[in-house]
């Protein structure tokens, strides 16, 4: 597990924060986070139809806690990149990602977002992982709603297993800070 996966959330006295309490807080936070994902659907292409299907009654992503699509990146903690991202749009996607608050996760929804898909050409970004980090890749063109739910559960497992160090008063990484605010 890389250091970037460890989000410092609570800072108390170190001796209080060790052991059992630390593990329980970590588990509780992971549990709370994984069932309250607010999604930002960055839908650009036909995968957006499949996203609607996932969100609508029959498949109903709300059953898994990702109830609420938020149309502001500042209120979302899961960025779903749904569809083809071309090179002209890449800086906009990057900006949307940067506008989201930590902790944040990214799902590449469909092959176009994951690898460019069959748009192996001059205009299309060959996978969004060239500009932003991705947690779960969902294949398919477009993916079935069941695949999306499976991907969501994989992400939830990842979030639930994330270690939150309590009482770890480590410095914030410099790229989290605005210049001159330290």
């Amino acid at each position, binding site marked *: 597990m890389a250091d970037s996966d460890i989000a410092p959330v609570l800072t108390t006295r170190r001796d209080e924060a060790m052991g059992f309490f630390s593990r329980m807080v970590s588990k509780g936070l992971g549990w709370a986070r994984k069932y309250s994902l607010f999604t930002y659907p960055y839908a650009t292409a036909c995968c957006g139809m499949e996203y609607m299907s996932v969100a609508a009654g029959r498949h109903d992503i709300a059953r898994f806690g990702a109830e609420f699509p938020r149309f502001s990146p500042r209120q979302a903690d899961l960025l779903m990149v749904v569809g083809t991202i071309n*090179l002209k749009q*890449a800086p906009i996607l990057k900006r949307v990602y940067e506008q989201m608050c930590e902790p944040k996760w990214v799902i590449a929804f469909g092959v176009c977002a994951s690898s460019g898909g069959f748009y192996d*050409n*001059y*205009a299309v970004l*060959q996978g969004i992982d060239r500009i932003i980090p991705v947690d779960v890749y969902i294949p398919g063109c477009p993916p079935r709603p069941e695949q999306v739910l499976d991907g969501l559960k994989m992400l939830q497992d990842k979030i639930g297993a994330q270690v939150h160090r309590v009482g770890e008063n480590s410095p914030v990484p410099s790229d989290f800070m605005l210049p001159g605010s330290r």
Partner: protein
Amino acid sequence: MSTFALDRVTAQFPEAVAERYLDRTGGAWAVLHAEHLPKVAAFLKNELDFKLFVSVDAVDRLHLAESDPRFEVVYFLYSVSRHEHVRLKVRVSETRPEVPSLVPLFKGANWWERFVWDFYGIRFTDHPDLRRVLLYEEFQGHPLRKDYALRDRQPLIPERPIKDIFRGPGTSGVA
């Protein structure tokens, strides 16, 4: 299909028409010399009522048997009153890919000619604003040319500031 319009053009400007033929669907075509194109288009618009500019596109004939000159610029006009299309072609070479612009005559030609410039690199002289229309300024090359490499990748571009979005009352301090 009717060849009325092209017959009139040939009778009026015999020096402008290089070639005429019917394609395999029976459509009538006229190949024009580039320098006579505005004159012929003005005649079609004003005299024969071809007032609807449908499109202009280009063909890169690089790998075809007949490839000299390399590019064909293809014009489609339509007359609403006569229910008739007219198809014009201009051939331009690779070394000097220039065609007179039809924007002074048809306002609708503006973005189409920018499109042809964008994807084929054919310049339209006297075009008022010949910039790329779909791709971005930093793009290298013209991707619908047949010698544009299949796997050519363009570098990532930085985000540019948005100045022209109207955000409700006021303009967010942007002039």
